[in-house]
């Protein structure tokens, strides 16, 4: 679909040459990482400043053209790709962060700075950033704020919202609001930054973010623990969470997942004796936490085997069993990725029931479970389904809703889960969403096909 020449001209007036229209060049911006969501666009625009981003929004608003804001395009719910021919507003050039405020332990960064970039800047100044997940090299701060991303350290430091002290953002009107003073306590008016966080590009385009940093915890130890059964794993996770304030990560991995990673990446199996379920945990402190870790594991019941790693290369080896899982699953064809969260007390019932729910609908499909068990967050990945067959998605979400959980823990609703938003959010809430959307984006040009179901 060729771009309207007037629109192209006006966009170039704002961002110069940074408008891609060549179909071959735009292709990589129109499909998501899993390949499940493929769209098309007339143009990908790359603003380099807040003013340019606001200019692009204004032009699009005046031209009645919808926009999909895009960061690193690592999102997993089809929220950052132009499924309906929207203009893509890629924020990658809004890179660069201000020098870290060392005394305050905070940093202001452009929306295009990657997660790895923030982690590096923080580390250089002696601090640390509280959020981490495996798409760190491409995922942007803007995208992680827009999705309220979680990851492996939520247990200790909270989700992205918990790090967020403020944003600068362009509303759908083209107006810019800024809240970057970085005050930990700030009770002046409604929490607009918190509202924009998690809004998946539907309320505003995030241009800069102010993030809190956390003290580094340089002494680390990780352990892979093989457990006899699910109850033992969940029980152990609960005990560790209670007794180890140093606990930074607590992930659950099932043995089929480990086997898959091993065969795809040629890794050695971690344990000689097979175990059904494993916990991967990491503790971090200012003093060596190894003894405390070993003691805590020692007091857990139903442990079959444990590998403890203290130095960084050995820890990285253990983490590969968890971190490569997403990529390993992707080699089986585009998975359906259902990222759900449950009250701790419903987790066991959910994990037990899910494979049956899937196989009842599609006997040849495979279910892969893993996740941030410390926060009640389970990633249900299903392979062997057609990309457009969402019967399984619906059935799993209904199970989650019945058990009092949320259908999206950290990836967002995007376009993938929009149909099921009613399972997590009431009609009254959705009415409020629509009204809020109108207040911030009166013409509905920001990601109009994401998150909120059509009325």
């Amino acid at each position, binding site marked *: 679909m060729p771009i309207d020449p007037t629109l192209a001209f006006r966009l170039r007036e704002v961002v110069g040459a940074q408008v891609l229209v060549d179909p071959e060049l735009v292709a990589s911006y129109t499909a998501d990482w899993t390949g499940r969501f493929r769209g098309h666009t007339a143009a990908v625009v790359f603003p380099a400043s807040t003013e340019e981003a606001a200019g692009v929004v204004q032009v699009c608003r005046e031209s009645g053209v919808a926009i999909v804001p895009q960061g690193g395009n690592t999102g997993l719910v089809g929220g950052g790709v132009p499924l309906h021919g929207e203009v893509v507003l890629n924020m990658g050039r809004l890179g660069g962060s201000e020098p870290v405020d*060392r005394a305050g332990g905070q940093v202001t960064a452009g929306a295009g700075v990657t997660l790895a970039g923030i982690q590096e800047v923080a580390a250089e100044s002696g601090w640390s950033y509280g959020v981490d997940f495996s798409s760190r090299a491409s995922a942007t701060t803007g995208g992680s704020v827009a999705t309220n991303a979680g990851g492996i350290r939520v247990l200790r430091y909270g989700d992205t919202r918990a790090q967020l002290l403020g944003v600068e953002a362009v509303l759908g009107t083209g107006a810019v*609001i800024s809240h970057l003073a970085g005050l*930990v306590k700030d*009770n002046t008016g409604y929490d607009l930054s*918190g509202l924009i966080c998690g809004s998946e590009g539907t309320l505003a385009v995030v241009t800069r973010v102010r993030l809190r940093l956390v003290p580094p915890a340089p002494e680390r130890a990780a352990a892979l623990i093989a457990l006899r059964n699910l109850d033992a794993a969940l029980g152990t996770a609960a005990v560790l969470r209670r007794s180890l304030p140093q606990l930074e990560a607590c992930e659950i991995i099932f043995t089929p997942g480990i086997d898959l990673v091993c065969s795809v990446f040629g890794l050695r199996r971690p344990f000689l004796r097979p175990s059904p379920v494993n916990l991967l945990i990491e503790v971090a402190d200012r003093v060596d936490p190894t003894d405390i870790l070993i003691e805590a594991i020692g007091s857990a019941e139903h442990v079959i085997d444990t590998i403890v790693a203290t130095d960084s290369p050995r820890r990285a080896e253990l983490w590969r069993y968890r971190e490569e899982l997403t990529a390993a699953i992707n080699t089986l064809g585009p998975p359906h990725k259902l990222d759900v969260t449950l009250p*701790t007390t419903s987790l066991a019932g959910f994990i037990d029931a899910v494979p049956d729910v899937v196989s009842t609908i599609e006997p040849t499909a495979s279910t892969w479970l893993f996740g941030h068990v410390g926060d009640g967050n389970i990633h249900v990945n299903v392979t062997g389904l057609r990309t457009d067959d969402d019967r399984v998605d619906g059935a799993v979400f209904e199970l989650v809703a019945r058990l009092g959980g949320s259908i999206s*823990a950290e990836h967002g609703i995007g376009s993938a889960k929009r149909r099921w938003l009613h399972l997590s959010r009431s009609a009254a809430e959705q009415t409020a969403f629509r009204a809020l959307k109108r207040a911030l984006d009166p013409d509905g040009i920001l990601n109009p096909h994401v998150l909120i179901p059509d009325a």
Partner: protein
Amino acid sequence: MAPDAVSTTQHDHEHRDAVTTNTERLPGIELIELLTSIVGPDNVDIGDRISDDLCHDESLGAAPVRPGAAVRPVSTEEVAGVVRVAGSLGVPITARGSGTGLSGASIPVDGGIVVSFERMNRILEIDLANHVAVVEPGVTLADLDDELAPHQLVYPVFPGEQSASLGGNVATNAGGMRAVKYGVTRHHVLGLEVVLGTGEVIVSGGRFVKSTSGYDLTQLIVGSEGTLALVTKAILRLHPRPAHQATLLAPFATLDDVAKAVAPIVMSGVGPLVVEYLDVISMAGVTASAGFDLGIDQDLQARTLAYLVVVLEQHRVERLEQDAQDLAAQLSELGALDVFVLSDRAGAQLVEARERAFWAAKANGADEIVDVVVPRASIPEYLATVGRLSEESSSLAVGCGHAADGNVHLSVWQSDGPTRRELLHDIVAAGVALGGVVSGEHGIGTEKKAYLAEFEDPVKLDLYRRIKSIFDPVGILNPGTIFDLEPAESRTDHRQHRKGAGR
């Protein structure tokens, strides 16, 4: 910025210092009957039967106002019923928890209805497996803590006043001393049940610690000071309760040294629970009113300009001792004149006395309390400016505050109204100039909305109004709190009117 753009509300209050019943404002029979039909005759008060306690909060500068009626609902349905009645008759509603607020936000609107949550004070559930408490809004912090302690759990937000209600805490996003470790109320509210201005009930969030499925209405309501919705139930996040605490007291020769010490302490990873500074006058005030002596010798006291109080907590004693030792060494390196590791009793006494700093100041006749927050590295510069400003106006401003959050609490003595208002305006303006804001934790209420109008971006204020009209289309929920429902014009009049006043 025009320096005379000072509070219009404060201006009004001068003419309204007595709690009077304005007969023209007595509620109509229809309203009373409708309210009675919802909450029962025992739970509706009008006229002089309304307790004086309901007419004010704890803000020092705000004048009390007598509402038209006060109701005490006992259930969400009753609250919703009251809101619907108020909406249909266009009568303003002010939610009320314990009335300990410091910004005038729970002061009733003349002729309006106060919805007091005193009867909705049940702890509905302590969910041990999910580390969650479900409470009604009238539950006090003290009650919740008593219930949690035996389970070795804690709701870790400790603003200075434990009689405050959780509904009030949610509505003001209360902070307090432990925010350096645990954050503020916002970070511990997992879900809410609320009644909107339409009478509709919305439930948001749940017993899970993370969710990103649509807009975070919970967070929007937290800190909205009763202007978006009435909170009828809250799901709160609990934490394991560390068994052991240690308190360290370090006198410093300059505030600069105090401020410079904060970042390294936080960065060291000892995870302090409390990092408070007190200037010498505040320290003298709080210890004297609490009736104890720190036992610091005269000579050292004479060289001290400010104190830093750091509280540590741990699950294990040995670890706590190690942390305390390392921190003491670090404090010395950072220029502390000395470091005292207080006994459990002395430590608890000191922290408690610090919590009572407000009452001490009030007893000593303080005229106003300031809650400005600045970037924490700017505290010394800010306090120097404040010192200069108060000297210039022959006033006294002393304080203590949450050093790690840059949250400065000043008590101001200046009995002359116009001089005081000018000074307060300048104190706030100085904070804003350093990148701060007018309220760190007490909220804007009615007392500080003129500052917000002056210093906040009009685009944001406009958004606030639009957001309010979504949740409260008729504008009955605490109207005139945080911002005036209608912008600008009327304020311009006041500015003109006030030109030259007090100068």
